Every structure is written in C-alpha cells, then in structure tokens.
C-alpha cells in the first residue's frame, strides 16, 4: 500500500478564496493510500517546502501530491523539494486547484468537490508513478558541417574555435559556395572574394577542421551526440597528397571546351580543372564525364605531364564512416532554372541572363575580366533591363515566397553596371522594393539617385528579339498601368532562390523535416530558428530559406554556438518521459508483434527494429525499440499500438487508466 502525502495550498486567498482548503485536506485524507493530508497558506514558500520535506521524513511518504497551482508553474519546485527529502522527483505530482479550479469557478460546494476530485486523480496517478531517472546520453565532440559555402565555413570556424573537432563536407571540388562567385557585395560594395578567401584559407588550415571536398553525405544513423555518418568521398582521380597544385595538367589538357560552372557557363574550362584560382583546396579534379581518357581510353596527357605522377585514373570513390555528435546543414540554395521562363526567352536568347551570370560578368576574375560585355556578341550593352521577382512571389511559377536577396543585388547590379558603363542606362522592373536592413534602403536610393537606374514598378509580360534588340514589354503600374516597351541590349533576371536539387532526399537521409519548397524546416519559426526537429541537427544559411550574407553568417554562428553548447557537456541529460517497448518473459519476449506501424507514427524516427536472438544467435523475433536519445515523449506510438506493447513513462497506460477510474 502506498504512503502518499497530500499538501493543499491556499495560495493566500487565490485558492482559499473559493475552495474550502481544510475540507479538501479532510476529504483527501480518506483516500486509500493517503497517509497524510494537510493544508497550508503558501506551499511554494520556504516554510511550505520545509513542511513537505519534514512530512516526507516523518510519515515515510513514498509519494507526494501538491494541490496548488498549475504544474506548468511549480512542478519543478516541488519535485526538487521532494527529491531533497529523498523521494524520487517523478513521484511528486501536482493537482491544479488554482488555474483550473479556484480562479475559474464560484465559491461553493461544487468547486470544493471538484478540487477534491482533482486531488483524487493525482493520487491515483502517483500510485502508479514509477521512479524515473533523467536519461544520460554521451556526446561525441565532433561536428559535421554539410556544405562549404559561407554558412558552412562560418559554422565550422566557430565550432573549431570553441575547441571542438569539425568535419566540413562540400560536394564540389572547392569550398566557397555561391559567395565566391559574387563580384561585389551589398550594401558596401566590397569585393566578395577579398572578404571570403581569408575565411576559406582559415578553414582549410584550422587544426580542428577536417576538410572533405568533392564529398557527399551518404547515410546518417544514430541520434544526438551519437550519430554515425557515412560520407562518400568522390574520386578526384588525383592523388591530393602527391599533387603540388602546379597546374601544368590544367594548362595542357586538350579538352578545353567544357562550360565552366563557376562562370555560370559564360566561359570554358578543361576536363581536369580547378574551379577557380582561389579554390581551396587548390588542386585539380578530373571531370570524368567530359574527360577524353574516361570516354574512350585515349589521351592521358595530364598523366604524362604531371611532374609528381599524381594522376590516378583508377582512383575509386571512398566511403568513410565517422562518429559525429552534432550536424549542421549548410547546403545553400540554387537559382530557378531557365525552362521556367519561356515568356522571357531565358535559355533561348543569349543576352537574357540571370543575376549570378551578371555577377560573373561584373567580376574582375570573371570571363570578361570585369568588363560588361553581353554574351551574344561581346558588345557593351547600352541599355540593360533588370527584372526583379523573376519567379519569386509568383504562384504560377510555384514560388509564392519572396527570395529576399534580389531587391538588394539588383540595386547593386545597376550600380556596378553604371560604374563600368558610364553612358549606359539601367532599368529595373520591380513589384516592391524590400530593402529592410542596415544601410540597405540607403543603398537602393543611391542606385536610383546617384547611379540613375530607372525603377519601373510593374511586371514584364514578354521579351522577344527584334532587329538585334531585346524588346521588353511591361507595364508601369504607377502610371495607371501604362504599357512600357524598352529596347534593351541585355536583360538580367533576378531569378528565384530555390532549395537545392535533391534537398528532400538529403533531408530524408538525415530524418529532418522540410517544407513544401524543399527548404529544411526549423524546429520553431520564432524560438528555435537554427534547430531542426531532430535533436542534434542544426541549420545555417539558405538551405532553410532565402538569406543574404549577413544573415547567413549570423545563423552560421548561431548554429555553431548551439553545437558548442551541446559539446560543453560530456553527457546530455534528458527528461525521462520517453516511450518504452515492453519486455516479457520468454517465449513471448515482448507483446510487440513487430508490425512497425508505429515507425511511421513517430515524429522523431525514434523507433528502431530490434532483433531478439537466442544464445546461438538465431533471430527469434523482431520487435520495436524506442531510442531514448531521440524520443521526445509525445506518446503517439503508445496510443497507436494495438497490443499496448509501447508505454510512456510518466503518462503510462496504467496511470491514465487509474486516473479515469477515479471519475
């Protein structure tokens, strides 16, 4: 028989004003199993807590019900008090006499009866409470950062600087990401490469950072503090250790007509290449899809000219598995594809380009060495039309959201253009100008007022080529929708920012959720913006939503700080309110029948399959197993389980049943 103490709090007049507290104490004393029941003015006060602690010792209580305010208010207080007196804190429960009773009902007998009922419910719960201990999970203090753009670099540096190991995985041959392609950055117009390159080098040389370029995450198992990650290190066909990065192979490669990704197809590169001069690591990679040797076994020039014999045609992909404590996703974005804009002739007319191509045209390290020349004939364009919201905020294009960075970079583009082509005229078609940010709106005003960009508020309906010009037809909605027609030499589309290709697949590999546009979903839109719903996996940068550089860097640092905080402890402590699959005596072993319908019901992928084997290793039965590191204790699986094989500690079937039985 239980020895339960009931402690009814007056909360001054807050409870006692409508509930007859002494009577509640009196009524609840008669409940079988209750050996002590008192009322007191302020239970949460020091004397009140002392009263509970002394009663626990004096009456040898093995369970406590504090009938006071909401458990959401003082449950930690009283559980701590109970623990101090030697009762497991999870054997202390609260009956909510204040928020759910005295404050919402009139002073009368019914209210007091309800108060007594609320205590009865909790007494039955305590009777079926089991002592629980917080769950300890060890932490592997190595972080994995996926994506080597500015987000990933910043995150990796912050974690590394906090003294923890970081593995930085990048799918392309060099880190740097989109930012390395930019010419200048808003709102300061400082050179993107100038500010990024030092960070890239720092990341590469940091003793705590292990760089894995040309690599992709293949598989993720485990849970917070204890992930097992398999990374595919794609074969560069070049021995990185032997290669000195002299570049002879790149110069000698006879196949030089491959569209250059870094220059957005505006230039060519050889089949063995370094993506860009400042690449990190600055060692070449063979593009096997375009290499003559890999296509027909002939050529082999690179191998012949390499002074250190570093070319390895037989190099294979490597699968590397490592123990990881936390993961930061920083996989970035992509721009909307050309086939989405038939009305603008994007992909059809050479001089209709996107913003990133314009960045390359404007970049000193770009294909034109920073001189603005249009792609079709290399002429200097005298009239350039910039179209903001190309795809963004356009339901017909499947992108109802704002891409966030286009207003700013379009203003930047008009300025860069004007600075290079002094007699040129830039037009901007826009829907709204969104320039919220430090020095942002001033920047846009400068583009309009100083660099004389003509801003036209309206959409462009069509672009077509006529007599060597691009006819841009639109409307000026500030002029009563007056049709506007501009004969342009070049058109720059600020195409929508979209999630990376296959981001859904990657999300599924990591068991994190994503929105309908393929951006990774944060755990809470306001309060947990850099966490995912899977504990131990964080987000940085544009893989979560369109972001500009300052935001990306801030989020990268935030994610880094989260990881550092996680790594500051040797063990994680978690509330023991988790689901458990029962174990029974053989031959049943568990009432679980292994239908695994619970697996899809679990929001946290916390349910695994476990094989029960006999001594000879033969599998007798495969049953569900809840990983306490992942389980958050919602209990959805518990309600779903037909055989009642899963139960939730703290809110068990027996407890809820017993609570119901009092009613």
């Amino acid at each position, binding site marked *: 028989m239980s020895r339960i103490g009931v402690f009814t709090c007056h909360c001054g007049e807050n409870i006692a004003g409508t509930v007859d507290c002494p009577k509640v104490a009196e009524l609840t004393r008669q409940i079988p199993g209750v050996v002590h029941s008192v009322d007191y003015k302020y239970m949460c006060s020091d004397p009140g807590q002392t009263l509970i602690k002394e009663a626990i010792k004096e009456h040898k209580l093995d369970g406590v019900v504090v009938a006071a305010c909401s458990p959401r208010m003082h449950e930690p207080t009283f559980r701590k008090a109970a623990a101090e007196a030697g009762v497991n804190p999870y054997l202390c429960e609260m009956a909510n006499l204040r928020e759910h009773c005295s404050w919402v009902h009139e002073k009368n007998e019914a209210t007091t009866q309800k108060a007594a009922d609320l205590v009865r419910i909790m007494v039955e719960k305590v009777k079926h409470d089991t002592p629980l201990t917080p769950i300890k999970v060890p932490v592997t203090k190595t972080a994995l950062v996926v994506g080597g753009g500015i987000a990933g670099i910043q995150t990796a540096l912050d974690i590394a600087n906090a003294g923890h190991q970081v593995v930085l995985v990048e799918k392309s041959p060099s880190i740097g990401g989109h930012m390395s392609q930019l010419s200048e950055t808003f709102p300061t117009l400082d050179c993107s490469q100038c500010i990024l390159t030092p960070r890239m080098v720092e990341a590469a040389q940091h003793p705590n950072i292990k760089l894995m370029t040309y690599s992709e995450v293949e598989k993720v198992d485990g849970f917070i503090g204890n992930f097992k990650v398999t990374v595919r290190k794609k074969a560069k066909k070049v021995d990185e250790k032997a290669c000195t990065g002299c570049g002879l192979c790149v110069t000698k490669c006879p196949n030089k007509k491959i569209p250059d990704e870094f220059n957005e197809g505006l230039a060519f590169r050889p089949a063995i290449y370094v993506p860009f001069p400042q690449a990190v690591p600055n060692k070449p990679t063979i593009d096997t899809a375009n290499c003559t040797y890999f296509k027909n076994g002939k050529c082999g020039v690179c191998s012949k000219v390499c002074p250190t014999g570093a070319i390895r045609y037989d190099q294979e992909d490597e699968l590397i598995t490592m123990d990881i404590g936390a993961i930061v996703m920083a996989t970035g974005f992509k721009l909307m594809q050309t086939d989405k804009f038939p009305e603008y002739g994007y992909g059809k007319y050479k001089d209709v380009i996107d913003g990133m191509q314009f960045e390359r045209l404007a970049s000193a390290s770009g294909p034109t060495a920073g001189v603005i020349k249009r792609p079709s004939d290399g002429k200097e364009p005298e009239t350039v039309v910039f179209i903001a919201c190309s795809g963004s905020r356009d339901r017909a294009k499947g992108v109802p959201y704002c891409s966030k960075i286009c207003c700013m970079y379009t203003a930047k583009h008009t300025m860069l253009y004007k600075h290079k082509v002094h007699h040129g005229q830039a037009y901007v078609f826009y829907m709204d100008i969104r320039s919220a940010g430090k020095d942002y709106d001033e920047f846009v005003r400068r583009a309009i007022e100083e660099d004389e960009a003509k801003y036209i508020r309206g959409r462009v309906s069509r672009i077509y080529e006529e007599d060597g010009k691009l006819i841009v037809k639109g409307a000026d909605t500030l002029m009563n929708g007056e049709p506007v027609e501009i004969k342009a030499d070049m058109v720059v589309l600020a195409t929508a920012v979209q999630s990376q290709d296959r981001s859904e697949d990657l999300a599924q590999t990591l068991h994190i959720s994503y929105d309908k546009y393929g951006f990774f979903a944060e755990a809470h839109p306001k309060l947990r913006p850099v966490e995912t719903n899977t504990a131990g996996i964080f987000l940085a940068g544009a893989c979560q939503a369109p972001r500009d550089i300052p935001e990306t860097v801030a989020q990268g640092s935030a994610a880094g700080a989260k990881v550092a905080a996680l790594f500051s402890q040797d063990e994680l402590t978690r509330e023991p309110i988790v689901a458990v699959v029962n174990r*029974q005596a053989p031959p*049943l072993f568990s*009432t679980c*029948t*292994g*239908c*695994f*319908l*619970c*697996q*899809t*019901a679990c929001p946290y992928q916390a349910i695994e399959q476990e094989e029960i084997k006999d001594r000879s290793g033969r599998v007798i039965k*495969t049953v569900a197993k809840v990983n306490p590191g992942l389980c958050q204790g919602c209990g959805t699986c518990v309600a*779903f389980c*037909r*055989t*009642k094989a899963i139960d939730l500690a703290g809110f068990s*079937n*027996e407890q809820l*049943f*017993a609570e119901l039985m009092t009613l």
Partner: protein
Amino acid sequence: MESLKQKAKELLEAGEIKAVLGYARGTSDTRRPHVAMSALEVDKLVADQACTTNLANLLMKHEIKHLGKLAVVASRPSTLRSLLQLTAEHQVADGAILALVPAEGGVKQLGTAQAFEEHLALVPQKKTEKDQALLDRLKAMPRAERFAFWQKEFSRCMKCYACRNSCPMCYCERCTMDCNRPQWVPVPSHAVGNQEYHLVRAMHLAGRCVECGECGRACPVGIPVHLLTFFAEDSVRAQFGQGGGASATIDNALSTFRPDDKETFIR
C-alpha cells in the same frame, strides 16, 4: 482441380515448398482448410466455388508458420489482399509465401507482392449484396435505433473470439483484450465488455481490414461483426483514399497523416 493437385505435387517434390495450405472436403460437404505435406494429402485438395475460407489467417498460426516455405491456395482475392497487408506489416516477407490461384484451365502461381497486386487489379473486391444492404439499412437508421440494433446483436456475444481468431489481421500474439495491466476491456461478455470489445476490434482493423468477412462467417451466434470492420474500412478509404490490403508498400492510413486532412467536427 487436377492442375492444382499436379502443381502442388510438383512444388512439393521439387522441394520448393514444405506444404500446401488449401481446402479439403469437410462436414456435410462443406470445405475446410487442409494442410497437405505429402502426395497422399495433396490428393484430398479441393478447388471449387465452395472454398471460401480466407486461408491467410492460418499462415499466421505458429504451428503452420514453422512448417517451412508454404504455398497457399488463394481462391478468393481477400487471401492475396491479406498477404499484401501482412507484408506491409512485416509479418510476411515478400516472396516468402507462394500463392496458387485456381484459374480457368490451370493454376496461376504468384510469388511476390507485386504479382499479387497485379493479379488483384484484375479481380476487384466487392461487398456481397446482402452485406451492402444491411450496411445501408444501418446507416439509414436513426442513431438510437442503430444503438439498439447493435446492443441486441452484442447481447448474444459470449466472447468466444471466433471473430478475432479467424481474422488474418488479428495476428497479435497478445491481444489488447488479454491486456490486464490495465484491464482496458472487461473480460466478461456482459454488455459493457461486449460493446468495448467490438469497438476496439473494429478500430484496430480500421485501415487494415482486407474485407474477407471471415469474422462474420466465424461467429457461431450470427452477429454481423464484419460490418463493423467493413464500415471502418469504408470510412478510412473515403477520408484518406487508401485502405487495407491494397499494397505491400503503402504505409498504414492511421499511422500516417496529411496536413490537409479534412474534417468537419473539430472546434
């Protein structure tokens, strides 16, 4: 029938299977399940219109499961539907059980879930007119009358569990009915115990029922218990567009969700 016997013998002789689960003649010329492990036993196999039992139920039985690789005679589509649902629920490995479907001029041998699905696409499942009529009649009744109808039916229930034990999807080793900590459903077959038993059974089969109707046929006192699971299945299908026994790969309707599931009653 002869081609079935021949096929069964071939498979047994080739050692491809250990036993054939089929039908044999039973009391008063009915058909009963029959396990044939030898040529002698194969000769007792019968395949005709009277073979109605859903044999998938027996596949889940401990003694039969452990005989080795089995072939099952699937005279009715619901047997294949059961196999699909059992595969989806990890009870049967895809390819572990051979289905022999008596067809015109021979026997169709199906070995994989995909083959079952393809075959089922040719033979749509339909409720009998009698069942549909009673379902419609019940749905049209005023609620209180429907309550009285079921209470009258349930009053005959004695919890022999023939409905449960004849159901291919009731394969749980320890049924909720037998869970006594807490004792969710009262053991006695009094009014409360019976109502709760049938409610729980139907709910546990919602989205999983293959609509073979075996439970209703098994009831010795003639309670139309199969209508409860048929109804639940209809409800699932109508609201979520998927039901039990359709595929070995679709996740269960009630352990998944869509954010835009439409209901009309939540305040």
